[in-house]
């Protein structure tokens, strides 16, 4: 803040986009919305509109001031009067409530999303340690998932097993989507009640959260023995993921990683399947948000620095076998990267 010439920063958070708020307050919000002021002298004030969340914040965040603000926007709008003639930054810009955003000129409220994004992307050793622990839980969570997957079970029953395991293991949050079936499956989504049957591919990405930090793992399993097409396709995804991981080191760009993954698909005549018609990203940052910046895409030129944490996942639709996923979390180093997830890179069979 001192370098940016800011006297205060206003951050917004909810259970979907909580990284900016968590970075400033260490509060993991679940219900309602929050705004927080961070002053240059280190004082933090957290405003919450849910009375249930206020109870929890008072216990979880003892070093900051917690205020119950049933009319959150009006109360923070009033509090902003204290900062007249001071320079205030705000993030994330897109989600700052309209009533407050409308006063940006009058209040010298500047968009500081990029500043916060830089802080969120570069990790301290303690942050990498938390992601390391989350990666271990991603591995053990996937072992629970494999154990739970059997013919006749519904997709949401697998999720139930995972979430129960995580709640009992100190994991407050998890982002998980799933795909069940064959060539008709074009992506992953929340469970819809599909029951597993022989021959189905079951894809999932598991994203447990430890102390606010997410790590992710993507794997594919087959109910029964995989067929020759599935084995051949999986080899391609593994080659692509390993090409991407081999590219990661401090100094390259996100585009370099995406290009390394996509070249493998192009070499095998599947270049169409790395476009946005079939896939979203070829990986992304992980940290206080499950889908952090930088997005690993061929047009994203963000530089990768040491201690940045990423998942490399060439997840996409395959025209013969359907949507397939494979991804590991890595931390970038000057020489390359350290892979944090340890689950074997196999097409599992259950």
């Amino acid at each position, binding site marked *: 803040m001192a370098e940016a010439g800011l006297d205060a920063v206003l951050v917004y958070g909810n259970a*979907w986009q909580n990284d900016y708020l968590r970075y400033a307050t260490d509060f993991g919000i679940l*219900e309602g919305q929050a705004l927080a002021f961070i002053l240059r002298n280190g004082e933090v004030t957290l405003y919450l509109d849910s009375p249930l969340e206020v109870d929890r914040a008072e216990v979880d965040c003892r070093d900051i001031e917690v205020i119950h603000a049933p009319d959150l926007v009006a109360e923070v709008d009033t509090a902003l009067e204290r900062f007249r003639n001071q320079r205030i930054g705000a993030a994330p810009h897109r989600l*700052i409530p309209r009533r407050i955003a409308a006063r940006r000129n009058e209040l010298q409220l500047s968009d500081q999303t990029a500043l916060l994004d830089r802080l969120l992307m570069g990790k301290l050793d303690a942050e990498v340690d938390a992601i390391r622990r989350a990666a271990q839980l991603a591995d053990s969570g996937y072992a629970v998932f494999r154990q739970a997957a059997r013919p006749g079970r519904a997709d949401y029953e697998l999720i139930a097993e995972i979430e129960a395991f995580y709640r009992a293991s100190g994991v407050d949050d998890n982002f998980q989507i799933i795909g069940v079936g064959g060539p008709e499956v074009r992506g992953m989504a929340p469970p819809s009640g599909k029951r597993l049957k022989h021959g189905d591919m079951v894809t999932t990405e598991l994203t447990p959260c430890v102390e606010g930090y997410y790590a992710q793992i993507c794997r594919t399993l087959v109910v029964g023995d995989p067929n020759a097409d599935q084995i051949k396709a999986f080899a391609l995804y593994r080659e692509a993921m390993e090409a991407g991981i081999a590219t990661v080191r401090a100094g390259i760009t996100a585009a370099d990683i995406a290009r390394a993954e996509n070249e493998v698909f192009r070499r095998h005549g599947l270049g169409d399947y790395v476009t946005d018609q079939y896939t979203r990203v070829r990986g992304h940052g992980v940290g206080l948000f499950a889908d952090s910046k930088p997005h690993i895409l061929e047009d994203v030129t963000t530089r990768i620095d040491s201690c940045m944490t990423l998942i490399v996942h060439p997840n996409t639709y395959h025209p013969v076998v359907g949507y397939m996923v494979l991804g590991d979390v890595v931390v970038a180093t000057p020489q390359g990267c350290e892979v944090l997830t340890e689950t074997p890179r196999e097409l599992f069979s259950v």
Partner: protein
Amino acid sequence: MRRGLMLRDESELPKAVLAQRIETARSAMRRDGLDGIILYTNLVQPSAVTYLTGFTPYWSDGLLLVTRTGAPVFATALSKRVAGWISSTNPLSEIINSPKPGGAIGARLAADGCKRVAVLELDRLPGGLYDEIIDAAPGLELTDGSALFASLRQKIDGAERGMIARADAIALSALAQVDPDIAKDAGAAAGLVEKEARLQGAEEAYIAVAADLAADARMIRMSAPRPLADLFALRASIAYKGSWVRRTRTFAKNPMRRAAVVRADTWFEHLASSISPGQSLEAQIARCVEELPGARVMSWMAESPIGSYPLQSIAASGRADHSNFGEGGFLVLSLQLKLDAMPWLGAAPVFVGS
């Protein structure tokens, strides 16, 4: 961000019910001289859009536009690849996948010649989306539509009541997994309750615990080992296909305290099933507690889905601003008692009137 079963079932939520809800919204728009209403949705503010479409986002956000005629338009930053999934739970809307959903809605409003449009919770609308709408439809007058939408939610229909009842049955069954004679650890108990809820088809389950109720009545999200004291409480906030309830139960290991808990539970069920329309909730609670010897109400709160939140605090002890509820209304009542110096917590859904 976790989500369980997300599925629309025609037998539970028929398209005709959604069409009727949209038509009721249109009647209110015509009454107020509006050309349309815009409703925002994301993971924590899904309920208004869920009510009108059946759709709840598991990720990202979006805007629903209902104008005087034609299909509602749902614009979202969710990728085009999941458009099929969105349609499966949002059967009546035209789906637009766009990195700028506000721009897409603004363009539609401009093309349709709309002049005056309400926005649910206008002050809280993300500023970025507001800017996109105004940039695409510069002459548009946007007004706050919160009161209009709340007027639609004063009474629930049969389909919603059925899904609330299902959510409540899941919550009760999940909390019944806790045996105070066996349960020793708060994290394990929370995991047990959540697993049962999800196995029964809960879309979401938030479990909170007061591990030592005599020492601290605050309910904390618990996912780590912590011993359960003689008196403890669990709250299960459960969603079933977009409909949310809360159930809180107090548990006692000591037989004498357990008898007191049973007494309070029975009294609370009676209270929850006898809330009358048109009367102050605070007064009704005060009258009813006289029937429970040795009891004193420490605090209470009523929540209802009158806006984008699944459950929004609309009245509470010391803040009884909206405490008169109409016939057919729905709320979740949470209550804290002292019963002969023993703390007790409860929460239950309430259908007002018959």
